């Protein structure tokens, strides 16, 4: 019995939510990572100001300042291209989980220094690659990025992804006629669902024999 997939599932099967999430989160992380990469010393200084990473051994802080911008760029590029999407989204979500408390604690410190100004009026260079920002807008931005990363993490669609092309899976949406380059399976078949294992094709000889019936054997 064929159950009709839920609305969210059907929406996911179009590949559009994943595509939007990939382009937004991937593009943003590529941009932010590149900005940090351009001035690593400034990033190192800002990183230290957070006071959340141990200063000893000093190699640790240096290593984070060297690796983090490139890690963001690699994640962004992976999402944009559509390769290792879940791995990249998982890494981005992990980084964002780390950034949230760091940003809030730094903003609270600045708020205290500035004599208790409203929280949303706190602005500082968070080292995010966008210069001086207001904390509330940064938190909203990070929340949206987190939502995008989660969509990329849970989506089962692999439409418009480079990995689909490489693995011989469907690259274009269901309304586009397409057969699998490996097995010749018709992707437009209604029973085919995204992410499911390829349906085993019935043996042509057996089908022909059964159609003739037992009398012909």
């Amino acid at each position, binding site marked *: 019995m064929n159950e009709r997939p839920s609305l969210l599932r059907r929406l996911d099967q179009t590949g559009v939510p994943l595509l939007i999430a990939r382009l937004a989160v991937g593009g943003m992380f590529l941009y932010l990572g590149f900005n940090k990469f351009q001035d690593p010393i400034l990033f*190192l200084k800002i990183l230290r100001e957070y006071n959340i990473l141990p200063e000893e051994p*000093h190699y640790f802080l*240096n290593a984070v300042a060297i690796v983090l911008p490139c*890690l963001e760029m690699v994640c962004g590029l992976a999402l944009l291209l559509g390769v290792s999407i879940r791995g*990249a989204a998982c890494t981005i979500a992990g980084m964002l989980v780390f950034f949230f408390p760091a940003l809030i604690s730094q903003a609270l410190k600045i708020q205290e220094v500035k004599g208790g100004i409203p929280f949303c009026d706190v602005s500082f260079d968070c080292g995010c690659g966008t210069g001086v920002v207001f904390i509330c807008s940064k938190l909203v931005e990070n929340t949206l990025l987190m939502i995008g990363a989660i969509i990329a993490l849970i989506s089962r669609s692999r439409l418009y992804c480079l990995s689909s092309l490489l693995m011989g899976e469907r690259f274009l949406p269901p309304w586009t006629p397409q057969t699998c380059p490996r097995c010749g399976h018709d992707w437009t078949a209604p029973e085919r669902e995204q992410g499911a294992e390829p349906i085993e094709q019935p043996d042509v000889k057996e089908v022909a024999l059964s159609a003739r019936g037992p009398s012909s054997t």
Partner: protein
Amino acid sequence: MRLIRKTILEAILILVVGTAVGFTANAARAKRNSIRFDKDYFKISVVVPPAEQMSPNLKEDQDATGSEPAAEPGAGQGDQPESAPGDGHEKEDSEAGTHADHPFQKITLEEVASIFCDPSTEQGVNIFLDARSDALFEEGHIPGAIQCDRYRFEEYIDTVVPACQTAEKIIVYCHGGDCEDSILLCCDLMDADVPYDRLCVFAGGWTEWKDNQMPVEEGER
């Protein structure tokens, strides 16, 4: 379960690739724009010389240059740093690098202004060192200040240290506020044999200077 394992493996792969790209790019990029992995950029290690050694040194230097002392009494020459003990000891605590507690002579905006207006300043008797980055220096700095980005000290050492050796008073400043670059630059200068008692830190820094409508110079020097 298989999906979770695959996701974790992909994340590890991304981490490995990111780390490899990071270190490779850092090694490949121009030296002035890279992070030296082995360098402790924020270590404050100051050997404060004994008080009795300071004045004769200063006197000798003044005799050698034949110049008058820069200062005016309130300009900080006679003010010994609050935390500078006279018995010579090493401070190796990163906490000691805050403006509240560092071993260098602190000077106020009024003192800096009087040194700035002193005619001997133009002759290089007193010099201003800007410890901020190149971009910030170009946006604006104290007129006559010498650029010396603290994190690229090696690039400036050939021009800055000779100037410091001949100067009587070296006013080092950075952005102000929590900025510690001026203190860290003082440490670097001491490592390059610039006498301790010539170094002064203008804690208010560029922010205080600019906010008080003091003269500003733009562009490179």
